[in-house]
């Protein structure tokens, strides 16, 4: 029987994968995907907990996260496109003009 803890473990694994992606990826686009993975991991958790408590709040939260993730992508991709136009690259390591 798949219980709450299973969902939570999946969520935690997904979150960790996302985090690892954020930390390791050099390509900005991949990095965005990684953050999406993290947010979706949270969504799984919320949905599962919501079910567990039989409470709708968690699902609501998940919906909001989906919405926000969508707008994040919108804004983020917009910035990325401009950046790509300017730089011609989405590699993180090229993006270190300001430091110190």
């Amino acid at each position, binding site marked *: 029987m798949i219980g709450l803890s299973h969902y939570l473990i999946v969520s935690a694994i997904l979150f960790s994968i*996302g985090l690892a992606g954020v930390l390791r990826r050099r390509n900005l686009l991949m990095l965005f995907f990684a953050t999406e993975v993290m947010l979706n991991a949270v969504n799984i958790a919320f949905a599962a907990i919501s079910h567990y408590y039989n409470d709708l*709040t968690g699902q609501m*939260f998940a919906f909001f996260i989906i919405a926000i993730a969508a707008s994040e992508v919108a*804004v983020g991709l*917009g*910035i*990325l496109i401009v*950046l790509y136009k300017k730089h011609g690259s989405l590699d993180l390591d090229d993006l270190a003009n*300001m430091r110190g």
Partner: protein
Amino acid sequence: MFEPIKVSMESLNLITLAPMLLAIAGGLVILVLDLINSKLHKSLYVMLTILILIVDFGATVGLNVNERGFFDVMLIDGISIISQLLIIVASILFTPLALTSKRFHEYSYPEFFALFLFMVAGFQFMVASDNLILIFVGLETSSLSLYTLIALHNRANSYEAAVKYFTMGALSAGFFAMGSAVVYALTGSIELYQVAQVLAARLGEHGLMLAILGSSVLLMAAFAFKLSLFPFHTWAPDVYEGASAPLAGYMSIVPKIAAFVVTIRIFGMYLDLGIEWVRDIIIILSVLTMTLANVMALVQEDVKRMLAYSSISHAGFIMAAIAFDTTEGTASIFLYYALFMFTNLGAFTMLWISRHKVRRFNARFDHPYEKFSGLIKIMPMGAVIMALFMLSLAGVPPFSVFWGKIYVMQAAVNAGYVWLAIVMGLNSAIAAYYYLKLVVYMFLKDPVKDVDTVYYNLSKPLMAVIGLATVATVGAIFYVQPLLSYLYYMISASGY
């Protein structure tokens, strides 16, 4: 079986939503105006924005203390009102900086002002709720707007800044969401007051502390990012540098006020529950932040970057106040920001008026120290005023930041953290060095040749802003008392 949902308008208490709605509506109006006539001058938008914010301010002032509204997700307590007021005032003060004598292209887009108003609304939502969803929505609304505004500055550095801020913001959003999920898992609620009740009831349970630890660390990481606390501060110098000076100044105040309010709500709750290690991590973060940011600021070559580190350090300084969990401590946060606001406004405005389209002094920086060399000879009043702001930031009495500092330190002493007060004092002394460095450049060095255009961007509105900032910085001693008693009243009314 299904009962019709009855929602009475009174119970919704929509007035609590009015301020944010006003700002959003204002933003929409600006967009519509642009649709009708796309040739309108930026000054119209600036003035419209200010007007909208003034109305917003009026609506906020009119709110009653300790009310809830809109299915109880809106929380209008004392700190929500004062923080909204501070946010709006700061927004009003920073808006006229668009009216430079030289044209900077982001301000020619009406979208800039619409986004600005949406951002303000987002911050207002953040502070006016104890519902984690609403906080998250407000946070993201404001952040996404802010990223865009930064990118609008249309320079290579701005994009870089926006991307860095955005990416790290996304990660912190992940942390926040995960943290909320853990809280939800623990308590079955995302309303902070219910969370507090549940936790209080279950606090003795075995293993609960571990979960609380996880949630609070995730949430703390999310807000430490927003508050630019060490080691989550790394974005701040780059973003300040990449953003335009007004936006950088704005970022040093408003998002932090909003984030502080949320931090107070969440971690104040933990502290009230008697979870002592929260206090420790707050203090450690605070000490690390103010010290390391200070020493890093010592070695900066660019004034704006130095001010970025200085803002980080100030944030660290104030962060400690949360750990005291006293009315004075909470009051000191708002007092500090209220006073800091004017000085920082002035300082960043001074940078803004000296901003050139091309870098004339240094290939990398817009505002290297050399640029201000001998400013006393070129524009004496400008130099004196800038020096006043620097001294204020350094905490020299009787300028505004001093009163904030002393109040935070008094709160520390009262809460029994005398050593922390001493650390704060010593940090202020270290900080004095880099502020003085600018004073030294302005007053004690000779001008670099061919610097006729230091006050390149100066215009009447900017002069007015600087004048206001100067008066507020110098005359702080005269309004600290009413400000303090108002803050005190509001904060104690909301039980902090």
